[in-house]
């Protein structure tokens, strides 16, 4: 981490817990590091209380390693399993009332634009499927209709995991859960399509089984939100605890669903976002 960004006051270096010292000397801020460099720098999350084999924990780790500018990023989360991990994340983050996350993020983005007119601040919503597609859908869609310059990332484990296993809009038809014993009667909501129609400039679906693609999509989404409009990334992260598979079987489950065609990696880029990204990535290429 660039020491010009964060400095410990003289006299306190030795008493600062080692994790903070490492964030200053070897963190990702102010540096060009990403998913391929994991293991070589101090990560923005290292400990969390999520279950063994939780794919959401893995997704979160990858998302945080993909942020283009963590020092100028504010994450807005919502209640759910991920909120337990956010207490350990070394990026500014706000825990909003369940479902309100996109409304909070909209206000925050506007306020930051007024407060820091010369700086770009990335506002990224990271919330569960229940928070995004059910209880918060109103706030999510209204933020897209208003073309708020924010990125929405859904951690799609296809269940209300944190409350013990109720079906969500994202659970596939027929899903049987602890608290949905008869099986879900309706299909999975097509939120990526809805996002596109509602005005998102960039929409992608991915899983932590493909870390490099996930990184590229998260970066594209955040960069597009800076300049073009709202963006949406849906990350499939199956939950071993509620779907009752072993902690080491997560990636296998994702691959199996891909084979069945019930989970697909997809990307939609609006023409405006395409032009923007072509210019940006072309410039990057030339560097």
């Amino acid at each position: 981490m660039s020491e010009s960004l964060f400095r410990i006051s003289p006299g306190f270096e030795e008493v600062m817990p080692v994790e903070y010292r490492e964030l200053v000397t070897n963190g990702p801020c102010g540096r060009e590091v990403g998913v391929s460099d994991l293991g070589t720098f101090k990560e923005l999350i290292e400990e969390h209380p999520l279950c063994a084999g939780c794919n959401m924990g893995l997704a979160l780790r990858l998302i945080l390693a993909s942020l283009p500018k963590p020092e100028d990023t504010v994450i807005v989360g919502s209640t759910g399993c991920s909120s337990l991990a956010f207490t350990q994340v070394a990026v500014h983050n706000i825990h909003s009332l369940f479902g309100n996350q996109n409304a909070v993020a909209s206000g925050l983005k506007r306020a930051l634009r007024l407060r820091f007119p010369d700086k770009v601040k990335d506002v990224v919503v990271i919330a569960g499927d229940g928070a995004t597609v059910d209880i918060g859908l109103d706030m999510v869609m209204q933020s897209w209709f208003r073309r708020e310059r924010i990125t929405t990332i859904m951690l799609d484990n296809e269940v209300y995991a944190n409350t013990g296993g109720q079906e969500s809009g994202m659970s596939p038809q027929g899903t049987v859960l602890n608290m949905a014993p008869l099986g879900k009667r309706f299909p999975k909501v097509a939120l990526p399509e809805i996002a596109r129609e509602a005005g998102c400039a960039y929409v992608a679906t991915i899983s932590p089984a493909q870390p490099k693609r996930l990184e590229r999509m998260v970066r594209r989404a955040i960069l597009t939100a800076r300049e073009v409009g709202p963006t949406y990334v849906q990350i499939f992260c199956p939950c071993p605890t509620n779907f009752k598979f072993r902690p080491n079987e997560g990636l296998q489950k994702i691959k199996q669903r891909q084979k069945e065609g019930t989970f697909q990696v997809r990307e939609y880029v609006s023409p405006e976002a395409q032009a923007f990204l072509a210019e940006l990535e072309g410039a990057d290429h030339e560097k």
Partner: protein
Amino acid sequence: MTASEYRVLPGPEGYLPPAAACMGVMLPEPGEALVEGKIVPEEDALQKIAEKLLAARNPVFFPGPLVLWAWREGVAEKAKAVVELVEAAGARIIPMPDYRPKYPMINPAVEINPNHPNLTIWHNRIDVGVFVGVHCHYANVALKIIRGGTDCYTIALCGEMGHEDAMITLRDVDAAKLRRLTEVVKTRAQARPARAAGAHERR
């Protein structure tokens, strides 16, 4: 305005101690300070802080983000003044680098967190704790939790208007005021050689 009867004293006061403000404790005016809920001249509070620090078995300073991180000009000078005060008092430092409600646990041996400050106080058996450079809202939460669950004597060296939830609070604390407090501590320490700097019991 009638003076409050409520005294801000070491706990444990119970699971939910009232906010001192709700009990009628008012913040001091410039030049004044609060000692255990009563408004006193600032000079009296400086003496009382020195007395508490020097009599303590295990006094610990809890610098917060406002002074730990050199985030703007002037912070380094204040940080230096804090370190000098700590040394004069023969105290230790346990930092509060940020306010993340780290879950499930913090490491209480090396840090203090405003959301469960009692863990650090219990773990290290701290009998006098000094807040400096902690944002108001988190200082108040932490001070109330400490009063609720521990018998630690709390002192807040506040850069703004003071913290009525601490047992002693100064207000408008800058580097100069910290240096003045250090002088008071040194003078009192010299008068009591047995309790001179560094003479505290360590564990």
